[in-house]
């Protein structure tokens, strides 16, 4: 089995599995020891994995909406790649959730057959797609926060979560650099690009506070996000300074009686997002691909 290029390999009649990737959509944790470590509550661990998995899944979906809409082909490819990395993280985390609580629920079941109030992502991940400046602002904030979080999670008592984090750190480092470089290019560009970039940052900033507000599950089994704020502020200050942007000073968008994304309370945009994400799977619930 040696080929000069991918097309030759695809056309190889010998192997019937080549024509589609993911024939059967196998369990991404196949063959991984998923025993819950002693002293850790399986239900808590599962709920925590859903939080981090939903952040990645929902934001990945927003990024996918940029395909065919990015300003340049290279950026289209970059945004798609970032979305793919996050989708990969989501697959592992949702699969981990289904094994940790003993339900055996699959990644597809979590992604396609949960109602809105069972999604645990932060609201920043679901925000309506705006202009490119807003995208860069969300990506900068999201990846700076997630990178700090995954770095801390590498020491998790759960070896599966620690391994997912270990890999994620390498990927999200690229995502953060991409967003930071665009923020500098736009912020320190023309007066007009500066204005759009600053508006993007100002518009999403009310959702930043939520990222660092710990949920009790996060305190019990995960990384307490309030411990990540200093690193986040430091990175954002560096980027904003190089980009001649100002770090917004706006009131955080509070939830409903203090309940936010981690409690399943979302913004209006979430319903539309899920309708799109789930429509095919719900119309054909028995389908496999």
């Amino acid at each position, binding site marked *: 089995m040696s080929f000069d290029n991918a097309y030759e390999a695809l056309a190889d009649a010998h192997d019937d*599995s080549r024509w589609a990737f993911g024939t059967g959509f*196998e369990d991404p944790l196949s063959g*991984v020891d998923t025993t819950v470590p002693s002293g850790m509550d399986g239900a808590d661990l599962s709920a925590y994995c859903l939080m981090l998995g939903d952040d990645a899944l929902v934001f990945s979906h927003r990024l996918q909406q940029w395909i065919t809409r990015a300003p340049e082909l290279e950026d289209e490819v970059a945004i798609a790649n970032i979305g793919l990395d996050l989708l990969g993280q989501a697959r592992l985390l949702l699969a981990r959730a289904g094994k940790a609580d003993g339900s055996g629920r699959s990644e597809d079941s979590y992604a396609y057959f949960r109602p809105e109030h069972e999604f645990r992502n932060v609201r920043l991940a679901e925000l309506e797609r705006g202009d490119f400046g807003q995208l860069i602002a969300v990506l900068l904030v999201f990846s700076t926060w997630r990178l700090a979080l995954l770095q801390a999670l590498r020491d998790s008592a759960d070896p599966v979560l620690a391994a997912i984090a270990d890999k994620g750190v390498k990927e999200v480092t690229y995502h953060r650099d991409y967003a930071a470089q665009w923020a500098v290019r736009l912020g320190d560009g023309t007066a007009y690009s500066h204005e759009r970039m600053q508006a993007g940052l100002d518009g999403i900033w009310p959702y930043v506070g939520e990222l660092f507000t710990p949920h009790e599950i996060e305190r019990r089994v995960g990384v307490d996000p309030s411990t990540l704020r200093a690193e986040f502020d430091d*990175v954002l200050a560096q980027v904003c300074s190089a980009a001649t942007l100002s770090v917004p000073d706006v009131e955080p968008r509070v939830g409903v009686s203090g309940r936010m994304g981690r409690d399943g309370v979302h913004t209006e945009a979430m319903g539309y997002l899920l309708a799109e994400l789930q429509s095919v799977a719900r119309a054909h619930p028995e389908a496999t691909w």
Partner: protein
Amino acid sequence: MVNALAVAKTVTDPELPMLTLADLGVLREVSEEDGHVVVAITPTYTGCPAMDTMRDDLVHALRDAGYDDVEVRTVLRPAWSSDWITDEGRRKLAEAGIAPPGSAPRRRGPIPLTLGPAVRRVSCPHCGAGETELVSEFGPTSCKSLRRCRACDETFEHFKEI
């Protein structure tokens, strides 16, 4: 019967078919006991869509060689690094016009921001010139970035250091 390790070593990567999974460092271990073969692989990127195909290809190749009882395990830790690509793999990449990766960064503590284009010494796989520039950190697949040669003007893919 050819031994299971030798069979597994012939299986190629679905997206880089000039390389075997062993060249890439994805194939971690093959063990065989009483006809039961266990193959351990480590994904390059978490979202790599080729993982399922790699699994299928390993099972098919081993089945064709007479091993009916094959189990493919995913090993997540230690995470795959481009440092695991063998010298042979690097040679084959360069021959196919893909610049092989340099050493992966090793970091402790907070990861520094890169605000300008990352400076890397990558030679053009077409003309060999050392003067090349980054076009995009994200290329046609997760594992590659896109660069351009200042001498011959050709664009080429560079396997990313991770």
